[in-house]
Structures are given as C-alpha cells and as structure tokens.
C-alpha cells in the first residue's frame, strides 16, 4: 500500500508521511480515552475527598483535626480515637449502640418488606371498592412533610405509654406507612404480566398462593431495592430516635455520634470521626454484598412491561 523503499535509503530515516486514517484515529481515540480517564479520576477524587478526609482524620490526634490543619496525614498516627470510640459513652458500650442500630434497621427492613409487598399486591392485583381512592390517599401521604406530623404522632405514642420503646419507630414500617415503598412495588407489580396470575387462578391458586408462589419470587429486584433503601434510611435516622428514645442504653449510632461533640464543653472530634468510620462499615458491607442487585433492581425498575 505504500511506495517501495529504495535500498539506498538509510534505515534511520523516517518513512515518508503517508495518509493513514486508521492509525491516526487509534491515536486520537487513545488521547480521548486518556483525557476521559484523567477527568473521571479527578472527579472521583473530588467526590471521594470527604470520605478520604474522614478516614485520614480518624487516625489524627484531636488537636490536629480541622481548624488550621489542612494536611491529610499526621505524623502522630495512632489508633487512640478508635479506642476512645469503642469505649462508649456514659457507661454504654459502643457495641450496644451498634446492636440498637442493627435491631432498628433490620426491624425496618423486615417490616417494610412484609407490609409493603402485601399492600402493593392488594393495590395492583385485587379489585376492591374504593381502590383508586385509597391509592390516591396513600400517595397523598407522600406529600405530607414529616415535620407536620411529629407532634401529633408524639402525643399519640406518649398517651399510649410507648415512648422510650422501639415501637413508635418500627410500627409504621410493619403497617406499610412508607408510601414510597408501596408505590414502588405497585408500579413494579403492574409491569408483571397478568397472564401469570390468571394461569395460577385456573390451576386453583388463591390470593395467598399467587402472592407467595408467583409474585414474591418475581419481585426480587424491587424487594432488594426496598431493603437497601429502608436499611440505609433507618441506619441514618436521627430525629425519630431522638424524639422517641430516652434511655441512652437504647440509643442508636446517630444519637451516640453527636454525644462526642459538645459545643458547651470540650469536643472530641477524633472519637466522633473514628466512630463515623465504624458506623459507615455496615452500610458499606451491605452495599458491597448487594451491589449487583442494586444495579439490577434500579435498572429493572426503569423497564416498561
């Protein structure tokens, strides 16, 4: 495809420039790809910097965190903050806070999965009188800001003597009060072919059978997204536990974290950050384990049936 090289030509001489669209485009692609990766890495760095700062600071002494100290690494590297953090607060061990958070988060996941899926089945598959009115009312609760109901709800639970128990925090989850998850599952179920339940009905299956044997297995992606979101929301919830729990022995992690920082006395930022790192681990592990399903769940939800 190129001209024959003459034998007198010195070997070191570069070949005559020839138009070669293929090789040029490979070079351009490489450059483009390199630029893309550099930019992507830089953006990742910016996004992840706070997390990096947190992990790095958890190994620094308290006086070197924040304020005029801008360097990430300290020469006084130590695990002291983690030791303080694990000591707990006011006679309550940190393990206790973790256990409480886990009880609440797992309770929330179990409750939401059970109640939201059953309610969603009713809304999506059973024709009962007033279905659309009730569905509309449920959606309307999404528009009600949480802060509007705080005090009325508190009065109800206080009158029932349920303050300082986990019941006010969990009962809503078991009664499908999280309209968002019910809605998510209804939408998912509506996309499943109705022929499946019709076939099952012809074979003699009732609602219970159709729900447990056909719907639930098919709804796996929606169930997993729901579990992940309700786990993380419950794990991070601050206001609910703050209002309803009184005894420090019952506090979950977000309440305990705040106890390290006290504007009116001395603040132990080091221990707080160390505990934040520890508090992040379960969520991170949860994410890593279910990572595949999260992507699957979210992408399936976008599909039209």
């Amino acid at each position, binding site marked *: 495809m190129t001209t024959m090289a003459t034998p007198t030509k010195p070997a070191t001489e570069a070949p005559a420039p020839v138009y070669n669209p293929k090789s040029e485009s490979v070079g351009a692609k490489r450059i483009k790809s390199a630029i893309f990766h550099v930019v992507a890495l830089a953006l990742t760095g910016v996004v992840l910097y706070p997390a990096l700062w947190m992990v790095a600071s958890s190994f620094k002494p308290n006086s070197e965190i924040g304020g005029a100290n801008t360097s990430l690494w300290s020469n006084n590297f130590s695990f002291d903050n983690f030791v303080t953090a694990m000591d707990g607060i006011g006679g309550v061990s940190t393990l206790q806070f973790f256990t409480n958070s886990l009880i609440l988060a797992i309770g929330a996941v179990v409750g939401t999965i059970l109640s939201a899926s059953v309610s969603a089945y009713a809304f999506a598959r059973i024709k009962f009188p007033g279905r659309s009115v009730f569905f509309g009312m449920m959606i309307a609760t999404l528009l009600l800001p949480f802060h509007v109901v705080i*005090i009325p709800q508190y009065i109800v639970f206080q009158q029932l003597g349920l303050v300082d128990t986990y019941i006010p925090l969990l009962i809503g989850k078991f009664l499908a009060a999280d309209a968002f998850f019910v809605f998510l599952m209804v939408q998912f179920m509506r996309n499943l072919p109705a022929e499946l339940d019709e076939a099952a009905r012809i074979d003699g299956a009732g609602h219970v059978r159709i729900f447990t044997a056909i719907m639930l297995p098919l709804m796996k992606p929606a169930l997993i997204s729901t579990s992940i979101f309700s786990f993380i929301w419950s794990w991070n919830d601050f206001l609910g536990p703050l209002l309803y729990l009184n005894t420090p022995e019952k506090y979950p992690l977000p309440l305990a974290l705040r106890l390290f920082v006290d*504007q009116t006395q001395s603040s132990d930022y080091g221990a707080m950050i160390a505990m934040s790192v520890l508090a992040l681990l379960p969520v991170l592990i949860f994410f890593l384990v279910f990572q595949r399903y999260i992507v699957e769940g979210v992408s399936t939800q976008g599909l039209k049936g």
Partner: protein
Amino acid sequence: MINRRNFLTTVALGTASAAVLAACGSPAPAQTGSAENPVTINYTWWGNDDRAERTRKAIALFESKNPDIKVNGNFTDFAGYWQKRATEAAGGGLPDVMQWDLSYLRDYGQRNQLLDLGTVKINTDAFDKSLLPSGQIRGKTYGIPTSTNAFAVYYDPAKLASLGIAEPDGTWTYKEYNAFLAEVGAKSNGALFGGTDYTGIWWMFNIWLRQNNIEAFTEDGKLGFAKDDLKKWWNQTAALRGTPAIVSEERVTQLAPKSPFGSNVSATESTWDNFMAAYLGDSGAKELKLVPVPSDDKDNLGLFLKPSMLMVASAKTKFKDAAARFIDFMVNDPEVGQIFKTSRGVPASKTQRDGTTFEGTDKLVVDYEKSIEKYLKDAPEPPIVGFGTLETSFKRISSDLNFGKLTVDGAADAWFKEAEDLIKQNA
C-alpha cells in the same frame, strides 16, 4: 364502597380502644416513696461522655442518701436536646427535672411549662444574691443556677512571649486593647492575628452597654439602647478590620467548627470563662490565661455572673417534693461539687464551692471569678423570648460588616429592623 355505618363503627371502636389503652398507660402513681417502694423521677441533661460519667456518680450518691427516690438519668447533645424538649412540651411529657439553659428559660417559663420553685423547699441561702434574679421571671423562680460563668479575655502567654509582647494585666481601655491587637498582628507579620473582631460578640456589646449604664433590654422586653449606641460600638474596631489585628471573616469560616483561638491562629479571644478546657484541648497549648474585658471606666467593668446552667422542674411533675430534693442536692451538696469540679462552671452555691478542691485549669477559672468579685453587678434577667435569634443575627450582620458587605450604618439599620420585627412578633 365502604359502608358508611361500618366505617363509623370502626372509627368509634378505634378511638375507644385508644382511650382504654391510654388509661392503662398512665396509672396514677403515688406522690411520695419509701425505701421499699421508691418513686422514680426522670432527670435529663445535655453534654458529653465526661458529664455523663460525673452525673451518674452524682445520681448514685443521691440515691444512696435518699433511698426513697430513684433517679432515671438520660442525656442527649445540646442541639438535639431542645428539639426533644419542644416536642415533649407540646405533648405534655417533659421529664420531672431538667438541666436548663438561660436562653430558653423565659420561653418555657412564660408558657407555664416550668414549676415555680418558690413553692417547693430548695435552700438558696448559700447563693450570691446578685445571681438569683437570673432564674426569676416576674417574681417567680423557675430555675436555680448550678454554677456560674463570667466573661473574660483569653490569651496564650507562650505566643505573646515569642513575639516579645508583654502580657496584659487586665486593666485596659478599649483603645489600649485595640493597640494590643494591632501590635500582635504587626509583630508576627500576619502569622498570628490579634483576635477575632470582639464587636461581633453580643455579650461584649452587652457588657459595654452596662459599662455605660445602659440596659440591653427594658423590663417590658424592648430594646434598651439606641441605634447610635450600636453604631458607636461597631465603629470601635472600624480601623482594625482588614488588618492583621483581626482575624478575617474568610479565615473564621474556614476554621469552623473550631475557633481561631483554638486553632492557634489568633493570640486572644473574648468569651465565657468555661471555654478553658475546650480551648486547651483544641489548641494543645500548655497554658492559657484569663484577664477581665477592657473598659473605659476603671471602676465599672460591666461584668456579672451568668448561670452556666440551671436546674428546673416540669410544671406537670407528679413528684414535686422528690424533684425539689434532687435539685437542692445537685446545687448545694459539697460532694456533688467535688464530682463536677468546674465542668458545669464554677459552683454557684458557696457551700458547694467551699467543699470543692480546685486544681490546675479549674483553679485558674475559680481564681479569675474571685479576682473580679469586686466588679460584679446584678445579673440581668433571663433574656427575652427569641434572644437566640437576635444573638445569631448580631453575629451574622457583624460578619457581613467584616466581609465589607455592609457599612456600620447599614449594619445597624439591618440589625435594628430584625430585632424590632422579632420583638413585635413575640409581643
């Protein structure tokens, strides 16, 4: 369609069962307890791990001395504490005894959420008479101070020595104080600022007003000073803003949540004397010292003791007597003083103060409060409702002043407008 009669029956049944449950939930408890059958009162406080440990010790001591009362102690952080109290007050479920902050006393007291402690037996003989009015509103005692704070100027002697600047002796005019701030900034070539802009601190302004015999708030809850007073105050440091004498507002924001002084960026800071431990911890400094605030009138420093916290009881408590005994114990018992040292502030009751041995940092703070004793005047009444908002907007507007976004006149206009609106709203 749901049958309407059925629906109504369901609602009626639901309401009835809720009422039955409610009745079961709160049986009428006995008013007084005995050693075999003690009453339980709830006590709640804000604070960190250290305070929790100390309070637990104090509660254990109280229970051993009063076997007929059990104290159930709970705690949260300061910000969450007030969210929780607001909800509980609305729901009628405030704990029996609470640690309280001065800025919330008038609000809850006026809304009859707090017990008038004048109606129960609490011994206040050992209290400084200038201090008690700070827990009273219109003649009713809603709070008993546990401990006191006084305003002071902090400085780091090591930093001054390295710059070759003499330590202040605490008798200075505003002019001398400004010159001192400028000297630190100049001699360190900008490596160290003199201090934060003290005209941005509400309490410094309040103290300056007292030095000029002006009350910040009148008895009927209005502003007691004129716009010109505020302009004069903000003009005090006009020449220093933007120079190394004063920490720039950008720097202050970068350093948050730590203070410039705690971050070793400035040489002095004016604030309450209970910040000593926090500053020592944040800055890692070996030693910090306290001197009184500047005043142009040598005999009137405008200083007063402010309750760092108070003990209050819920107006709805079923155990008034037990609550009163617990409050009395927490503010008067010398052994409680020994447990808390100065972590709540300097003990307010003389019996408690005398029963406590102070060492190191604690001693510095106690000695400071002793040294200013002769200048102390009556503490102001609890701040007006919405005072917190006023203090915040004072800080915000003066930081705009430092950024150069506002002139002194504009800043004074802006603050007065906000203050007058707020006072009108709460009237």
